[in-house]
């Protein structure tokens, strides 16, 4: 047992995928095997870290023994731990899926990039200072852009280029904010900043810059224009990674800063964010309904689900924050399953036109079941993870007395139902133009179903997950 409690698992979480990436690059013929080994060992490390944190409480690790303010600190509390867990679970599932999805020519490019992305994500969630967050944000962005360009088609390249420019622009806004905060307080450590930051013009300028930069990367309406193209033109496993994890990582930074660094949040700004979130739900939902291609529909659904995450800002209660964090986790799992299902359908028929799905229900029953289960979680029907999250959100809304957000919540659920059933409906009808089918590897279908079942199971894990969120009180001390 000492092995578990004495090893520095936080370092393993960054080093393992980094070494994995280099190994996949050097021995590209064995990339699939090496990648799968890395994926499983990262998952095991996350489990070990969870045990360690449950035993010893929140964890702070000074890299190289330097310590803040000069060195780089890594920090684990409930918020970062849950992000690491969901990344590891989605990561392993996507690794298994990709091991069958890519042809060898593509696989040798895919695996190193995906491992680099994983390393960037893990170090982002572990960062304890706002400058390190900038560096990891850039690492994540560069790996993600390269993954979008992977298919090499003209539309994918254009989407990747636009994504890169947006991503760099967002990072520079964020970095300018870091510069102003450092000038004002002489530190970039989140914990030290939290003690010192007070309302002042320089701080508000920094908040404006950082929030703008992050909103660009999170793709909150109306800054979502780049997302549908980037997420839908990438290969299916990459779409899943982007929607489930990459967008969420930027939201994680915003959440951290909002809860810890920014002084008593400005009421007008939090209402603005809530309003933009509400617009994203309605706009994304309507756009998703109008799409004729399955992957674009799912991408617009991501635009919509991002909107939900911002409903917690005007509520500003612990239960509200927990609700959207729960939503973030269940959306990550459900959206992974949904993009994987779309990948299977695309693999099978060679296209993803919704009107020509051509009796997918009979031909890929496992995939369609998975799609339906993921849809249940997105709609927020019991007993899924999405249901618990929306229930909590409704409770927070009622407690705050701001009933109008509940209308948006219900309208969003109906819109989600409409576009999920649109897809399922066409899955039972025969297409006018028959397509030459290609067998989908069994592994891809089963892993899709497993992830979809997990999205439902998340509804039964509420007590454990909510208890983990309290670790280190990232959302503030609970009164009761």
């Amino acid at each position, binding site marked *: 047992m000492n092995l578990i409690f004495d090893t520095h698992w936080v370092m393993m979480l960054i080093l393992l995928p980094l070494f994995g990436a280099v190994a996949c690059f050097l021995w590209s013929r064995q990339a699939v095997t090496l990648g799968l080994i890395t994926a499983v060992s990262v998952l095991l490390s996350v489990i070990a870290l969870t045990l360690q944190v449950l035993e010893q409480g929140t964890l702070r690790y000074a890299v190289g023994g330097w310590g803040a*303010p*000069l060195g780089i600190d890594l920090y684990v509390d409930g918020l970062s731990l849950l992000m690491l867990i969901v990344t590891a679970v989605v990561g392993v599932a996507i690794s298994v899926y990709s091991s069958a999805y890519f042809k060898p020519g593509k696989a040798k490019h895919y695996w190193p990039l995906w491992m680099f992305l994983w390393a960037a994500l893990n170090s982002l969630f572990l960062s304890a200072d706002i*400058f390190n967050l*900038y*560096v990891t944000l*850039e690492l994540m*962005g*560069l790996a993600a*852009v*390269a993954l979008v*360009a992977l298919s*090499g*088609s*003209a*539309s994918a*390249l*254009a*989407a*990747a*280029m*636009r994504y*890169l*420019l947006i991503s*760099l*622009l967002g990072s*520079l806004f964020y*970095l*300018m904010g*870091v*510069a*102003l905060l*450092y*000038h004002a307080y*002489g530190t*970039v450590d989140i914990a030290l900043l939290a003690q010192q930051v007070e309302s002042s013009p320089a701080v508000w300028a920094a908040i404006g810059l950082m929030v703008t930069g992050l909103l660009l990367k999170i793709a909150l309406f109306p800054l979502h224009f780049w997302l*549908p*193209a980037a997420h*839908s*033109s990438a290969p299916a496993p990459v779409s899943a990674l982007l929607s489930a994890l990459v967008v969420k990582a930027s939201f994680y930074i915003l959440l951290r800063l909002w809860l810890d660094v920014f002084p008593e949040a400005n009421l007008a700004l939090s209402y603005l964010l809530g309003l933009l979130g509400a617009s994203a739900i309605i706009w994304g939902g309507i756009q998703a309904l109008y799409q004729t*291609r399955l992957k*674009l529909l799912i991408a617009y659904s991501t635009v919509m689900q991002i909107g939900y995450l911002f409903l917690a800002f005007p509520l500003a209660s612990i239960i509200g924050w927990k609700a959207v964090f729960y939503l973030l986790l269940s959306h990550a799992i459900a959206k992974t399953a949904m993009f994987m299902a779309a990948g299977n359908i695309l693999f099978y028929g060679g296209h993803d036109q919704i009107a020509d799905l051509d009796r997918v229900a009979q031909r890929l029953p496992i995939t369609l079941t998975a799609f339906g289960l993921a849809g249940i979680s997105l709609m927020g029907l019991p007993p899924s993870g999405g249901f618990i999250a929306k229930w909590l959100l409704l409770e927070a809304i009622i407690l705050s007395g701001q009933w109008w957000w509940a209308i948006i919540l219900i309208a969003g659920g109906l819109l989600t139902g409409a576009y999920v059933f649109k897809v399922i409906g066409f899955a039972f009808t025969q297409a006018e133009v028959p397509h030459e089918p290609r067998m989908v590897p069994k592994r891809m279908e089963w892993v899709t179903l497993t992830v979809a079942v997990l999205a439902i199971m998340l509804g039964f894990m509420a007590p454990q997950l909510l208890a983990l969120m309290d670790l280190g009180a990232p959302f503030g001390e609970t009164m009761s």
Partner: protein
Amino acid sequence: MINTIFLYALAGVGLFSLGLYALIVHAHLLRKILAINIMGSGVFLVLVSLADRTQGIAPDPVPHAMVITGIVVAVSATALALTLMLRVRSETGQAELLEEPPK
């Protein structure tokens, strides 16, 4: 009286805004990539100039370290952007992003 340090920081903000303007108005990708780099230089100038807070005493080294890290990031990002631009040009025949609804 405005001291020189403040002037440098203002110049940094100026570069940042100029870069942002150029990024928005120019269609050619090389110009967009240059614009991003100019914005980055603006941020770096702000970081370095604000490090010299107390005159006569050696400036704070931490922002300098940040700028060096930032330059490394900027170089890698520019390399990726240029490669992508060349690929976009060889696929579509022009180094511009067309305004087209994703299909």
